[in-house]
Structures are given as structure tokens and as C-alpha cells.
């Protein structure tokens, strides 16, 4: 199978090493603990393994069988066939981090192009080779801001409408340092506007962070908040949905210092939550503060263009305890997926997907609004998602939707106790008008019960 040794070869190798049997190679392992029994099932052949895994996969109900109106941080988008076809090239997925640039130009150029595309999409100057996901990238923004002020500013203002899991992760990462205060998201009103958040900013503040569009799908103009943040001397961080940026003003144009986001919508399957892609972009002036890998252009000894990992002196393998982050591996293959995706869609496709999501979500909201049983939050423009207040418990509504083959919206009460009976419905280009009409019909049916 995967171990190629014949008995003869093994004997010959042991002889050359100078030991009698393979067990002799483990003489340094304490004898009482050596060769423990492992209680694992009998091994499967490839054929059996495929059947077994197929059974597990079939025990799920997937978005192939269910119509999906669930988002809340992971989005059901179409992935063109060419994306996975290229991802399956062994040259890409069986290589490691490009430490040897002469034999890694494929990976290096792909990352360089990824950096270019993300910078263009976000309107920022530079972008790293990725973090683990949107949540960890958000936490890394906090760490970068902390180091930027050399620990002298200790307050972090997070909008309550940042994805709750991102805020949790932020707290896990920064929890090691008890002198830090993470505020802004603990008030009674989760639906705070950017203006209301601004009152929390002071000269202790290192970072003000918001999501755009926010966790509830709302799109606010953020220029004023950016100005207030900068007036207090703090950094302004924005969590983005990259698909929305096919349509919306990029954060680089309204004063963002750090832009992070979940790259999953860019050609990466839902895959039950991972692996995804953590986007991290910033301004040129902060390039030496950025964590993770960066690829730069250079030339070889013949003057030919090539790419290398650059500014590596910031990283843990060189700086050890003085490094600002411990990040080692990133999401290389996922960054490649998003690079292929953005290249395929290009200028027109990215815009088309974004506007389709926008208009179809608004169509769904407007239609649902006509039913008085549902209060739809539409006072603010929104993207992908919108909040619906229901008269019945969401568990009841979602169970009913599931019976009709629909994956219903996200129950906001899980994260926001004050939002009882509030549902977050997501619409993407994958939801046809017919599917939306069907959802509205079933919701009406429930509403009339």
C-alpha cells in the first residue's frame, strides 16, 4: 500500500544499520511503555474505506438535497469546475511551504497573485499569504494593533455586529494578557449603529473594529467612524465579506487600516466549517507589523523575475519568543482556490455574483414583508442576509422548513439573548427566484397556522 519495503530490503537495511530487528531501533523508549496495544478497528482496504466513508457522507443531508437559506459566516456559492480541477494538481497540494524558492515558483507566484487580487478587492496596499479563517484573522488584527502601540494602548472596541465566533476567538487569542479591555459588544443593544459605537472610543483605544456588511447583513457607510477612530489615534479594522466587495466601496477607500475577512465564499466549499481562508490586508506603512507569510517579487542571478518569501525576519522560526505571532502554516491551498476563483470570475463575474446576491436578498425580504406575521428589518441596505422577527419560536419554524426540504435561517438568540425569535436569512446567487418564492410560500403557511 503506502509502505514499499519488501522483506528482503528490510533485512538488508537492518543489516546495514547494524541492528538485528526493527524493534531494536526503539531502545531509547522506556521499556515499560514500549509497543502498547492500540485498540483500533481492523484495517479497511481502499475499496472498503470508500464504501464506509460514503455511508458516513450519506448519513448527512446536504445542500444538494436541501435548499439553503443559511449563512451566518459560511455561504453557499457556486464553485466553477476549474477551481477544484486545478486544486487537485499534485504539484500544488503535495508541496510544502515554499522555503526553497527555486523549486517553488508555482506556489510563490500563486500567492503573489492572491496578494494582488485581495489588495485590489479590499482597496488596501498589501495582503499576507493568509490566516486560518475569518475568526483567527480578526484576532490577529487585535494582536497587530496591540504590537503597533507597543502595548501602551490597551482597549479594543468591537462592534456587537461582528460575527460572534470572531469575537470569541478574539477573546481567546488576547485572553493571555489581563491588562487588555475588550469592549463595545457587551451592551444591551446588539443592533447598534456605527455612530453609537463611536462613543466608546478614547485615547486608550488601540483598535476599533466593525464588520462590513455586518453580521446582520447591514451595510453602513463607515467613513465617519473611521475619522473618529483616527482622531483618537487608534487603528480602524474592518471585517469584510469578499463577495460583497464585488459591489461595495472597498474599505481602503474609507480609511481602513486593517481589513480581514472570511475567504470561504471565494470558491471554497462549505465543507462543514473548514478548511476556509483568513484574509488579512493592511496599509503599506504597517507591512512590517503584519503576521504570517508575505511573498515579494525579485530577480534571480540572471536577472529573471522570480518570487520569494520576504520579510521573514518577523517570523517565529527566526524571532522565536520575540515574534509577534506564532503562525507557521497558513491556508496555502485555500488561497490558491480563491485566486483561481477570482481569476475565472474576473472583473465582470465578481460584480455579477455580488449584484445577484444583493438583488435576490432584497427581493426575498420585500416579498416576506408583505406577510404581517414577519417583521423584516430593511431600514438599512443589506447584503447576503437580513433579520426577520417572527411571532413563533424559531425552532418550530426551522423544523417546519426542514420538513419542506429547506435549510432555514440562523437563530440569533443563540448569540444575542435579546434577539429572541429573530432569524438571519441568507440569499446567494445559488437561490433562484423559484426557490425564494417557495421559501416565502412555506413561511406563509407557517405564519397562517
Amino acid at each position: 500500500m503506502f509502505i514499499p519495503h519488501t522483506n528482503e530490503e528490510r533485512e538488508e537495511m537492518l543489516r546495514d544499520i547494524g541492528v538485528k530487528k526493527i524493534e531494536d531501533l526503539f531502545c531509547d523508549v522506556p521499556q515499560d511503555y514500549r509497543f502498547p496495544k492500540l485498540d483500533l478497528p481492523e484495517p479497511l482496504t481502499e475499496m472498503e474505506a470508500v464504501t464506509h466513508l460514503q455511508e458516513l457522507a450519506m448519513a448527512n443531508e446536504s445542500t444538494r438535497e436541501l435548499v439553503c437559506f443559511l449563512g451566518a459566516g459560511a455561504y453557499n456559492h457556486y464553485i466553477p469546475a476549474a477551481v477544484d480541477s486545478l486544486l487537485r494538481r499534485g504539484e500544488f497540494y503535495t508541496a510544502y511551504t515554499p522555503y526553497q524558492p527555486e523549486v517553488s515558483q508555482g506556489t510563490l507566484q500563486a500567492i503573489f497573485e492572491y496578494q494582488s487580487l485581495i489588495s485590489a478587492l479590499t482597496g488596501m496596499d498589501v495582503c499576507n499569504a493568509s490566516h486560518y479563517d475569518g475568526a483567527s484573522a480578526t484576532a490577529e488584527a487585535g494582536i497587530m494593533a496591540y504590537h503597533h502601540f507597543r502595548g501602551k494602548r490597551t482597549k479594543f472596541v468591537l462592534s456587537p455586529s461582528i460575527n460572534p465566533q470572531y469575537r470569541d476567538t478574539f477573546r481567546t487569542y488576547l485572553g493571555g494578557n489581563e491588562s487588555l479591555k475588550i469592549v463595545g459588544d457587551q451592551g444591551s443593544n446588539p443592533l447598534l449603529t456605527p455612530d453609537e459605537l463611536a462613543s466608546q472610543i478614547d485615547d486608550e483605544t488601540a483598535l476599533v473594529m466593525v464588520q462590513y456588511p455586518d453580521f446582520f447583513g447591514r451595510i453602513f457607510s463607515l467613513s465617519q467612524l473611521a475619522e473618529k477612530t483616527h482622531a483618537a489615534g487608534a487603528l480602524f479594522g474592518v471585517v469584510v465579506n469578499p463577495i460583497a466587495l464585488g459591489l461595495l466601496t472597498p474599505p481602503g477607500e474609507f480609511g481602513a487600516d486593517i481589513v480581514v475577512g472570511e475567504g470561504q465564499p471565494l470558491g471554497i466549499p462549505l465543507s462543514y466549517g473548514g478548511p476556509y481562508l483568513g484574509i488579512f490586508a493592511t496599509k503599506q506603512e504597517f507591512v512590517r507589523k503584519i503576521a504570517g507569510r508575505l511573498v515579494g517579487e525579485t530577480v534571480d542571478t540572471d536577472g529573471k523575475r522570480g518570487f520569494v518569501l520576504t520579510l521573514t525576519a518577523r517570523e517565529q522560526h527566526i524571532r522565536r519568543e520575540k515574534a509577534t505571532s506564532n503562525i507557521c502554516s497558513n491556508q496555502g491551498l485555500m488561497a490558491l482556490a480563491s485566486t483561481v476563483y477570482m481569476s475565472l470570475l474576473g472583473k465582470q463575474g465578481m460584480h455579477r455574483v455580488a449584484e445577484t446576491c444583493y438583488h435576490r436578498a432584497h427581493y426575498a425580504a420585500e416579498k416576506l414583508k408583505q406577510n404581517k406575521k414577519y417583521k423584516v428589518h430593511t431600514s438599512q441596505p443589506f447584503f447576503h442576509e437580513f433579520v426577520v422577527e417572527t411571532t413563533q419560536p424559531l425552532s418550530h419554524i426551522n423544523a417546519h422548513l426542514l420538513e419542506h426540504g429547506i435549510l432555514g435561517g440562523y437563530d440569533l438568540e443563540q448569540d444575542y439573548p435579546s434577539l429572541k425569535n429573530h432569524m438571519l436569512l441568507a440569499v446567494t446567487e445559488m437561490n433562484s427566484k423559484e426557490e425564494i418564492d417557495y421559501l416565502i410560500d412555506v413561511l406563509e403557511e407557517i405564519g397562517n397556522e
Partner: protein
Amino acid sequence: MSEPTIYELSSPGRVGVQYPEVGVPLSSLPDELVRKDLPLPELSELDVVRHFTNISHLNYSVDGGFYPLGSCTMKYNPKVNEETARFPGFTLTHPLQPEETVQGNLALMYTLQEWLKEISGFSGVSLQPAAGAHGELAGVLIIRAYHRANGDEKRTKIIIPDSAHGTNPASSVMSGFDVVSAPTDKRGNADLNVLKTLCDDTLAGIMLTNPNTLGLFDENVLEVVKMVHEAGGLVYGDGANMNALLGIVKPGELGIDVMHFNLHKTFSTPHGGGGPGSGPVAVNDKLVDFLPGPLVEIIEEGTDEVPPLFGLVMPPKSIGRMKSFYGHFGIFVRAYTYIAMHGAKGMRSIAEHAVLNANYILSKIKNTYTVPYKRICMHEFVVEGVIRDASGVHALDIAKRLIDYGYHPPTNYFPLIVHEALMIEPTETENKATLDDFSQALIKIAEEAKTQPDLLHTAPHNTPVKRLDEVKAARDLVMCCTIPDK
């Protein structure tokens, strides 16, 4: 000619994928929210496919050749893993679906948790961390949370041997600890005499890599564990080198308190050009309540006819979330497939042959290259990348010359405690002929170093690019391309 970038290939008006019409009435959007320009390239599908296919050819990969990169366990990545991970029943499930609709996913994760516990001798596993360094961070945060829960707040010191991976000290500092480096003794073990002086009531724990980065199993491991525990500290085990230990010893049984796995090293999931990895963290009894979550547990026991009901549960004193959702599920499917195809005997065979292969290369080259610690090695070993009578030749030159012979270079200049280190890890999936040829190449290069040193200094010679100007890259900082002005 270098390969053009996607921006250089762009032509206005091209599109690589068609989408259906919007198909619903249009809604308005305030002008100030609409972007004025979207500077993305424009290509056809074939442009894109050909471009990425062409640049893929510029990569060295495990599929293409021998990749003895020490500390990275570049073993073969079975193709069947790529099939199973792509079953639509897995890839098309949303992470927030009701638990009753994803029982297949949860069963797989639960079983993987159980298998990893059995293989390592620990009592709890969280699959959430996304990579080795992420698992380490989780582990160190667990140590911190444990001491705090005991009101033991003066414990601020973490001991890290000087042979450790750079991620160890970086993770400790991120978690708010002070790092104290501990030396390695003459046999390549942690120096017990120095450790003794560091074990006091400010000790939070030690981060131990075993086998260590010299490729040696620490002969003092039981004494180290005892010493640290007696001082009230905890022992962190860096599981990056677990490929040497499968079925050989369970770290949990040695008294290690917390350890991370690298599914992308030990359990054959691909390295992906730098990720995604997966770094589950395992703990013993006293730390299970602190694990990052959620974890998968059985909510209702099954019967003969009905399978158990699985659900997601947050441990009571959890350090919190390390990331969104539950970890790199797609990687779990690959690791699960791999373990399912090996069973207990297969696991042990992996470690045995990984160690056999490393010792075999060592036996072939030990008279040519200086071996700093003359012992039987585990799955990897370190030699000095310097040649007697060839003083101008460095480890880097040897590494680059290996490329001319068709190999990926070993890890070089790590660990830091070996002069001009070359760290070689063949893995169990390489056959004897490959190991023979590679050893021969190393011996031949040592000869060339004396007779034709320039061959080494100018290497590699037949790669898509030659040695690159890293100083220029760091000075000019060109990190983006754009559409060229025509």
C-alpha cells in the same frame, strides 16, 4: 522567459465563467456605497487553466519526487483521501445545519477524537485548532487556564529546550508567559541539571518535543516529567514528531499532560503548499474541562438498531474558541480515511519504517558528514552541512546542489544548536532504491565540494529560476501586481 502574471494575461471584456441573469426586480443601493472601480483581471477559462497548470510545473512536490524535509513529514498523500474528502455529503454541508442533519459528520469527528485518544494515550481531544502552531497556542492557553483555575497565578514561566521549534516560544509569549530556554546535554537530551534549577514555584510548564528536533528520543523523558510535575508544572508535548511514535509509545502514558497533533504530518493529509494543516489538541484527565470547543459527544446512546445521537458540546471551563466552527473538517475526513485503512498494526508499521528509513540513510552517510550526536535516531536526523577540506561550502550550498540531483533539499539551519544543520526526514513511504540514490548523491556532493566547489555555490542550475535576490525583495517590497499600462 518568466511565466506572466494573471494581470499581464488580462484582456478587457473577457470573462471566464457565465452566470444566470439576476432574474428578480432590481433594488436600489445608495451611490456612496457602490464601488467605482473593480480592478480585477479579465481572462477566459482556458487562460486561467493554462496559467495555473503552467505555474504548477514550477513546483517540486511529493508526487514528483523525494522530499526529505526534516520536521515536516513529507510522506505520500494517498489519492483516496482526496476522493473521500470530496464526497458531496461532506463538502455540501453547512456548519450551522441542525445537528440531526449532519450525523455523518459528527460520527466521523467523534470517532476521530476517539482514535486520536487511543493512539496517544490521552483522555480528551479537541479537533478545532487549524494547524500545529494553533494547537500549540491552544495547549499553552490550557496550561494557563489550569493554573489560574487553581489560583496559582505566580506560575508565569515556561521552559523551552533550545532545540524546540520556533513556534513553541512564540506560542508561549502569545499566551502571556515568560520563556526560559533550557540547554541540551551531550547526548542530545534535555539537560537535567539545568532543568532542576529552573523547576520552582513560578514554573507553569515545559514544552517538550520528543523525539526532539535532533531526531532523538529523549532518554530522560520520565525524569523530566517527574521533575516538572513535582514543581507543580505541566508538561506540553509537541506532537510534530508523532510519526516516530505511532504504536511505539503513547505520550499520555509517559505523563505528558497536553499535546497537539499535526494531521498534515503524521496522518498523511497534504501540506497544500503551506496549508491547510490541522492541529488537534489532546489532554489528560485534569485538563479535559479546559479544551477549546465545541467537541463532539454522544448525546443519546445508541442501541443495536439505532445509532447514537451525536452533538456539539462546549467543555465547562473551556479556554474558548480557537477559530470559527469545529476545525478543518475536510482534513479530518482525510486523516480518518488514513487511520481506518491502517488499524493498530498499520500504525506501528508506519513508525517502524519511518525510523528504519532515517537510520538507513544515516548509516550510509555517517562517514561523510559529521553527525553531532552518535545515537540511533528516530524518524529524522541532523548532520552538519560542512565538508572537511572544503571550508567555503555551507549547508545552503549542499541543499541547493541536491536540487540539481532531483531532490528537494532537507531542512537547513535548523535546529539552531547544530552548526550548519541539515535535517533529513525520509518518511516511511520511500523505497530503498530512492534512499540509496539520495545517499549516493549526498556522498557525491561532498566530493564535489572539495574538487569543484563552484558547482555548489552556483547551484541549482536547471531550475525555472536560479538563486533569487532576497535582499532586493525585502528592500523593494513589491507584493502586488496590477494590470500593466499598455
